[in-house]
């Protein structure tokens, strides 16, 4: 099977890029586009993994004059940089995906919300949006299809929680970046109270790629429940950090590290954070697992955003726990009590543990109770998953005393 992302579009001019995915879509009509995406088995690549076609179909089926499409490019998960790769290397494909999503859902307005620190990405996308307007790929009556679509770039102000779709919507509206109560889901009442589909950069790029073909090669890739490919951004203690495209089920995590990323930098592998810092760690004994949604779930972890962080055995796991807990403490939106207070307290406790070099059983008990409460009752996905990594670290390394 061919990889789909790493071979196309790099450096192409607007004349050279054919927008064949968009053209196909415009020819097929929204329902057929949705059917094709559903058939491909594409799942949201932001971390939650919800089937994209079903999301699109829900918005498409709502009768409403105004609907919105939002491309979530607020990539902020430490260790995750695949969206940036796409924005800077395949910007055509990303924008094409957004327009297709608008067409399929019956939305005439789109936003691309890019993380503020991605200065280069913003520059590229901004320039390209202008060009697409010039070439009538955006605007009224796109490519003489009768479909009109306007796209606006919004620069994030620097809040990780805005990666949560409801926080992101609040942010676009000019409110504080804090999560909303669900229901209503954004597909029913999103931006300015209108039906809104929020998709990740990678999801949209994949959708554009899928629409390029008359047949549906994407659905032949991967496994039954994990179709297609996934961009994995690998960082940490590896010899060749970077973005790699992996077909689901074709490699184990161990193989990804060794065959793609050049192996562990250091004596030996300590553990792997497989999908960004909201996911549970896998120890050296656990990395022989095939890279699919289902296999990682079986191991009690997750594909997440695909941000794989490799940690060598020489490192102090408590230092990582401290960094991660400080990060979540600072980045919770602060609206719901469990997440705000839970992350604040965990960060203090973990900091104490780090200074001492090992946790007490009492501390472990508190950490696991707080994790239980926060993941049960937090208001959004940020809170729900914020303590996954910390607890898994203590679960797996509790008895290991660390030299300070």
């Amino acid at each position, binding site marked *: 099977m061919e990889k789909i992302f790493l071979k196309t579009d790099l450096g192409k001019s607007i004349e050279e890029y054919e927008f064949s995915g968009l053209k196909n879509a415009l020819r097929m009509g929204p329902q057929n586009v949705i059917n094709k995406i559903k058939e491909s088995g594409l799942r949201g690549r932001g971390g939650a993994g919800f089937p994209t076609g079903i999301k699109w179909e829900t918005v498409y089926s709502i009768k409403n004059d105004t609907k919105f499409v939002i491309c979530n490019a607020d990539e902020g998960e430490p260790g995750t940089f695949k969206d940036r790769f796409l924005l800077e290397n395949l910007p055509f494909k990303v924008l094409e995906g957004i327009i297709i999503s608008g067409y399929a859902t019956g939305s005439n307005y789109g936003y691309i919300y890019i993380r503020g620190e991605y200065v280069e990405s913003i520059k590229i996308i901004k320039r390209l949006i202008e060009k697409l307007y010039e070439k009538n790929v955006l605007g009224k009556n796109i490519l003489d299809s009768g479909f009109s679509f306007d796209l606006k770039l919004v620069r994030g102000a620097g809040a990780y929680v805005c990666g949560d779709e409801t926080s992101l919507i609040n942010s676009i509206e000019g409110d504080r970046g804090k999560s909303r109560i669900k229901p209503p889901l954004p597909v029913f009442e999103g931006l300015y109270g209108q039906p809104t589909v929020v998709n990740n950069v990678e999801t949209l790029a994949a959708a554009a790629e899928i629409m390029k073909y008359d047949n549906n090669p994407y659905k032949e890739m991967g496994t039954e429940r994990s179709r297609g490919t996934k961009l994995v951004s690998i960082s940490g203690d590896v010899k060749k950090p970077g973005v790699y495209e992996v077909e689901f089920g074709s490699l184990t995590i161990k193989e990804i590290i060794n065959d793609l990323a050049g192996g562990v930098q250091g004596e030996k592998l300590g553990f792997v954070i497989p999908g960004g810092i909201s996911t549970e760690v896998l120890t050296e004994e656990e990395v022989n697992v095939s890279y699919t949604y289902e296999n990682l779930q079986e191991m009690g972890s997750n594909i997440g955003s695909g941000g794989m962080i490799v940690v060598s055995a020489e490192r102090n796991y408590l230092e990582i726990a401290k960094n991660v807990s400080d990060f979540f403490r600072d980045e919770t939106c*602060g609206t719901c009590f469990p997440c705000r207070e839970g992350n604040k307290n965990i960060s203090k406790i973990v900091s104490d543990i780090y200074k001492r070099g090992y946790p007490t059983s009492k501390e472990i008990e508190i950490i696991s109770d707080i994790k239980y409460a926060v993941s049960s009752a937090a208001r959004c996905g940020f809170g729900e998953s914020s303590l996954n990594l910390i607890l898994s670290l203590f679960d797996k390394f509790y008895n290991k005393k660390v030299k300070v």
Partner: protein
Amino acid sequence: MKVKINNREYEFDKEMSILDAVKSAHIKIPTLCYSEKLEPFGSCRLCSVEIKGERTLKPSCVTKITDGMEIYTHSDRVRKTRKTIMELIIASHGIDCNLNCLTCSKSGSCEIKEVAEEIGVTEVRVPPISNGLSKDESSYSIVREPQKCIVCNRCVRKCSEVQSVNILTIANRGPDTYVTTFMDKGMGNVDCTNCGQCILECPTGALHEVYHMERVWDAISDEDKFVIVQTAPAVRVAIAEEFGGEPGKIATKQMVAGLRLLGFDKVFDTNFSADLTIMEEANEFLERFKDNGKLPLFTSCSPGWIKFLEHNYPEFIDNLSTCKSPQQMFGAVAKTYYANKLGIPREKMVVVSVMPCTAKKYERVRPEMKGDVDYVLTTRELAKMFKLAGIDLLNLQEEEYDEPLGISSGAAAIFGATGGVMEAALRTAYEVITGKELENLNFESVRGIEGIKEATVAIDGINVKVAVANGLGNARRVLEMIKKGEKEYHFVEFMACPGGCIGGGGQPIPTNNETLNKRMQAIYEVDSSLPIRKSHENPAIKVLYEEFLGEPLSEKSHELLHTSYVARS
């Protein structure tokens, strides 16, 4: 809709929140950020319940019931989760030796203490974390102690949703999230109306009034001072609550006895000057009506409302009655007429008010009428003073107010409830204009807890259109309607607090809909039980005009009893 709650089946005929459904099954779910008067917010998550088939717990305040839903309100997972969240709340609530429960403004009415008890927290395993924020003492009326704030947003939402004043907001993110005023300027330097509704809403001691208790103790113990006290109408139907009495228990005469025991030289009644207010205001209305003056006339008793108008609708300043509020009129009369009568120099006289209101603390320092009143105690503060003096209020022998500033009518008593000022004014206006006696003194159409009330009253063949608004959000609505020309009135009563003074920011906590209704009922009971029910029939008022003021709106009246306003926008 069939719903199972803790394995029992219930049937509901309409869509509602799980919280309401469960409540109707007589099961109590703990809440903290929830308030009956506010939109559900879903932030504390203490009301979370388990729903069969759902991966996570759902907050019952913002989740609707659906047919066939199976709800578990106190399952293992729910109990364990609530307990941990509560521990975290307590840990961030700034309780150390200086800020502990014993010295807290809410020591007797602490909501988080109650909730912690319901949840069964027996220990707090996480270390306390202080936010390090300092006290906000910039206001004449309200103090903020951010270290006790748990950021439940209730004050912010009350100020915005109910009062439409919007002076409080949330700043920052994550652990640094805190409640503050615009640009951190402090309550005294923003468009705060001092209504104190935020205090009533706060489940902790993060908000309370500026205390005048110590200053009043000092005055009482100063032998050189002649200290008199006036009590507002709404205090008498609420103070008993602080001593375990039912809301609405009328404790007027015990309160008078208690005030004497505290050591006040004379115990008087703001109701006296409420009658005086009616004399002036009803005549002001008649004058404007006859001479094509500025109408509609707006009442001026509520200082929160006055400041709201000065900030937000200065174009309506000429519509305000120039009458001082009863509190200020009392001070003005006491320090002139009464002081002269006794031969006491004005400087030796100290006037203390007991008010259901926090804005009165601000009103007393307004430059336009500074010096009329020296100190203002809220109902809550008076209760604290009684307790400190060991006064067992509800078992005291009943005593009468002193004369003459303690004599009043039923019309004055109803000032305590929304619509009361209007009703009192109509009773007098009607009889003054027509020269006939009113057959029915009760103007039912302006009574009740509703936010905006309207009535048309035929006086001498003329249809007088009146309206009554309580709560500043409703005040804004009425003003907007007048502005757009959608409504035309002759006379409008505005009260800053929902329910009027009975729901004032200085009243006992909790002040919820149930207590409001009971206090209101009691107010009308006080009225109907009095022999005199019209302000112009108050004999002490008649004597005051004969001996001192001349007639309503006289030069003397204008000098002492009327005031002016400033545009603050």
